[in-house]
């Protein structure tokens, strides 16, 4: 048994956001999706926009996002979340609309929808969780899989000649005139989680300005498919993912307004 500490004279300074349903998530232990879900829901709670937010769920590990987020949500066909979000936002321009997508959904089958939604400058927020592997289907190679990384469909490591290069989505959409805020963040350390929350808050607030698409890429881990413990996977993320996917702000046209 661990120790018990009296909570008398104590203030509660952090708790699970009320906008996250009281339900155990189906994600594997240590998965970054849980942190990303919690951050989005914390922002919805803090901005007081629970009644005015519509989320678009993807296909992939996070397909059940609507079980956990206590807001209005819509499931989209594989890769088409940005297209669905476009329709929702145009019908309800006073609502906050965001898509929550993984790399298989956003960067593989949905590249077309993503790029054109960003290029049209739809007033939506795109939350892109990049873990360099197809999680739900069993760890196959994704467009974001690193060169040399071992997956079930490239068992000797991804090779450039046969499989091409990993795609950097943040850099790609930052050069489109339709985007207004693009940042890449990670959720493997407490400091980075705080930064990620700030970036997501800015992205949601940018919808009020109606100036274009906001795009947040969250570099995340996948302990099960990387075949590591959660702590090891966060270290691997630091050493291998971040040199290829550098964190930082890629575009900011909203600050100072």
């Amino acid at each position, binding site marked *: 048994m661990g120790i018990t500490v009296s*909570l008398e004279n104590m203030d509660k300074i952090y708790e699970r956001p009320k906008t996250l349903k009281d339900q155990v998530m189906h994600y594997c*232990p240590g998965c970054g999706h849980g942190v990303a879900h919690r951050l989005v829901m914390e922002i919805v709670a803090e901005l007081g926009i629970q009644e005015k937010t519509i989320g678009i769920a993807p296909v992939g590990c996070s397909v059940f996002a609507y079980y956990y987020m206590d807001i209005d949500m819509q499931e989209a066909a594989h890769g088409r979340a940005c297209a669905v979000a476009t329709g929702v936002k145009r019908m309800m321009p006073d609502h906050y609309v965001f898509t929550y997508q993984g790399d298989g959904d956003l960067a593989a089958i949905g590249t077309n929808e993503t790029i054109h939604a960003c290029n049209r400058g739809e007033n939506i927020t795109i939350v892109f969780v990049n873990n360099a592997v197809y999680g739900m289907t069993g760890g196959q190679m994704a467009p974001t899989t690193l060169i040399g990384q071992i997956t079930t469909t490239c068992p000797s490591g991804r090779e450039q000649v046969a499989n091409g290069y990993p795609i950097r989505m943040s850099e790609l959409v930052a050069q489109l005139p339709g985007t207004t805020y693009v940042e890449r963040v990670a959720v493997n350390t407490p400091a980075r*989680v705080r930064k990620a929350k700030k970036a997501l808050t800015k992205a949601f607030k940018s919808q009020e300005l109606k100036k274009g698409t906001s795009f947040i890429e969250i570099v995340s881990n996948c302990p099960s498919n990387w075949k590591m413990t959660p702590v090891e996977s966060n270290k691997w993320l630091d050493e291998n993912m971040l040199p290829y996917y550098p964190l930082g702000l890629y575009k900011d046209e909203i600050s100072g307004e």
Partner: protein
Amino acid sequence: MAKVKGAVVINTENCKGCGLCIYACPTDTLGFSKEINSKGFNYSEMVQDECIACVSCALVCPDAVITVYRMKKDKAV
């Protein structure tokens, strides 16, 4: 500077025992339990009274099972 005293309460039934909070804790307050919960995970728990209410554990917890408390300022020693 007076040391900040804190405490964490973990929903052990929903904890999946990933250990990220234990790694993130700067004061080694948290550790794995010897018992398991109904899902079979060695959950995370307070093993010593060294919490400084830094919230690092709750920030990295993927399952949002950690609630953090801090001693009221006027009661601090």
